Every structure is written in C-alpha cells, then in structure tokens.
C-alpha cells in the first residue's frame, strides 16, 4: 500500500474543509469532499486501505473538535468499510448503484454528525443543508464517475462542438 496518494487525499480533505469549502458553497450548501473520497476509496481500493484511510480521515477531521473525534472516526471508518463490503459483495458496476451508495453515505454522515452536535432545528437543517448538500456531492461524484468510466471524455466533449 503506497502511502503518498493517501496523504495527498488527506491534505485535499483538509484543504477543502479549511479553504475551498466556503468558496465552493452555494447558498451555504457545502460539498462533502471527505465522504466523496471515502466512498471512492471504498469502491475502488482494498478493505485495508478503506479501514486505515477512514480511521486517519476521522482523526484529522475530528482534530478540529476533539469531543467529536471518536464519532468522526467511527462514522467515517464504518462508512469506508461498509462501502467496501457492499461494493465487494454486490459487485457494484452500474453508475446508478455507485451514485446510490455515495448518496446514502453522504446523507448518513451528515445526519449522524448533525444529530450528535445538536438535535435542535434538525428538520430545518435536514431540508436546508443536508439534502441539498447530499445532492451537490452526488452531482460532483456523478461527474467523477462519468469521467472515470469514459462516458465524458475530451474527445466526446470536442465532438459536441
């Protein structure tokens, strides 16, 4: 297992959460890059990588709020492992199934962390931030899957014009 790419992913996650998150937010709706990367690793890498990357990402994300660190570690690692288990058992191939897995992961992470922080105005947060944030992340994930599967390529893009 090469460590460098995963270090870069971790740097990307912190870079996004500290700097890009505000810039990329649309009316306060934020992209969940952390879960997007976790799901991608769960889908395309081994379970060892999923476990350790989930654990590391949880620690790094939780460092900003130490009281939330165990929850972040638990939720993110469980998501990483669960995605890996689901993808290896069901053998996810179709685009829709990957998108569903991504959507469920983002939604679960957002809901659990929101409920841990506070249950006040949960439904408002659910409607105003969690669901649009999930949709935003799924949209970016969908683009990634389309590019990765070769359904969107530079040649095809050029052919349009």
């Amino acid at each position, binding site marked *: 297992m090469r460590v460098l790419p995963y270090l870069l992913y*971790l*740097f990307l996650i*912190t*870079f996004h959460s*500290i*700097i890009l998150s505000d810039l990329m937010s649309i009316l306060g709706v934020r992209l969940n890059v952390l879960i997007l990367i976790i799901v991608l690793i769960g889908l395309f890498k081994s*379970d*060892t990588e999923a*476990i*350790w990357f989930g*654990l590391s990402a949880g*620690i*790094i994300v*939780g*460092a*900003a709020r*130490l*009281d939330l*660190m*165990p929850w972040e*570690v*638990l939720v993110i*690692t469980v998501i990483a492992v669960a995605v890996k288990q689901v993808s290896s058992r069901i053998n996810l191939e179709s685009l829709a199934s990957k998108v569903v897995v991504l959507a469920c992961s983002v939604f679960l992470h957002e809901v659990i962390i929101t409920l841990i922080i506070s249950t006040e105005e949960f439904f408002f947060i659910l409607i105003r931030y969690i669901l649009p944030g999930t949709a935003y992340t799924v949209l970016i994930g969908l683009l990634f899957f389309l590019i990765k599967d070769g359904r969107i390529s530079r040649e095809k893009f050029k052919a349009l014009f």
Partner: protein
Amino acid sequence: MTWFSTIFYRNRRLLNFSLAIIIFLLITVSDGVVRPFLGNIAMSIFHYPFSELKSSIDNLKNIAEDNRNLKNTLTETSLQLSSLAEARRENHRLREFLGFEPPENFRVVPVKIVSLGLMGHNQYPIAAAINKGLNDSIKINQPVINRFGLVGKVKEVMPEFSTVQLLTDPANAVSARIAESRQFGIVRYSPEEGMIFDNLPADATINKGDLIISSGLGGVYPSGLTIAVVDSVLSIKGEIKKSIWLKPSADFFEIEELYVLESVIE
C-alpha cells in the same frame, strides 16, 4: 517467524479490524491523552499549513478591502478638497464684490450662470442662462454686471431661469460715454472688429486707457457702470470718424457670478 507470517497473511483483514478497533477504543476512552495527542499531530501536520494559508488569504482580502475603502475615501476627499478650493475662490470673488456700491436706487441680486451661449469657435459668449427668473422678481431689460463692470441685460425671463444678452452680442448696443471727457458714443461688438466705440463726435478727445462708462441714456443701464477701457485709437487723415477699439472690463471668457441690478423704485 514463519508461523507468525502465515497467521498474519491469513488473518490480515482480522488484524486490520482489530487494530482499528483498538485505536478507536483508545481515542474514545483516553480523552485526556490519546485524543489530544492525535489531535495535536493532525492539527500541526494537516490543519496548520492551510489555516495559515487561509489567514494569509483573509489578510490579503482585508488589505484589498481596506485599499478599496481608502481609495474611495481618497476620491471623496479629493472631491471635497477641490470643492473647498472652489468655494475658497468663490469666497474671494464675493469678498472682492462686497466693496462694490450699486448705483443709486438699485440693489444687486446675485445669480449664477447655468449655461453660456457661444457664437462660434474662439469667440466670446453672446448669451448666458442664469438661475433666477420671474419667481425671483427678475425682469426684462434689467442690467447685469459682475465685479468688473457691465456684462449685459436680461433679455428673456422664465419662471426659474432667465437669459442675459451679453455686451458681446452684436445685436446689443450700449449708450456710453468717456469717463474723462464725458462725450457720448455707442459701445457695440462685432465678431470681426471686437468691441468698438462708435458714433463719437469727430472732434472728440480720446486716448488709449480712457475709461468707458454707461451714459444712462436709453433707460436700460444706469449711468456710471464701467464698460471698457480704450485699447487703441486709429485716426486716418481725411476721414471724419475715428476707429476706437475697446477692451471690455469684464472678461467674457471667465464670467462666473453675475449680479442683476434691480431697481428699488417701482
């Protein structure tokens, strides 16, 4: 060793899970040691560089914002300064005018020029629109002066505005006299010759630098208003008339504040 390697490779997944669970339990249970330790490492390696970067970006943004505000303030201050300078100049002109005594039975109504009607390129303006009219008791044919002398007369009056026919309008002629010799003539302006003093008796004595004032004849302009000084006199032998060119007292290129002379006798 072989035994250990075999167990490790066979149960690698189990070992990974077990290690991950142990770390998770350590993080959960030991909130005073392990959690701060890991948090500190994560903060110093991953968060700190980006936090510094973000604070630098925020600083730059603040500096840019401050810079923009300072530029706006500078522009506003420059505008205020120029308007203050303009006010100072206006104040100076008005102070100079304070010493001016209007002719008997007249009072001055200060007016501002709204626009100037030019005759052509490099020519004097021939008319001026002023910011007072019928609502301010301005009437047709009232004389208009500035601090240097006679400028013209009111030609048209509207409720809020009036137009002044300046001395430089060729259609405007003023009955005048030489201040020294008291001889009468007509001051008029033509684009070709400039301001001239006409209809002067052939034997009249006139020299360069003589002051020309309004005569009071004609009923429009009161007597004694400064109009011009004699710029040059040309006498040709055999001709009865003298050609006399005048230099207007008021600089028609730079007229700003004007004063309408309003008769106090109804």
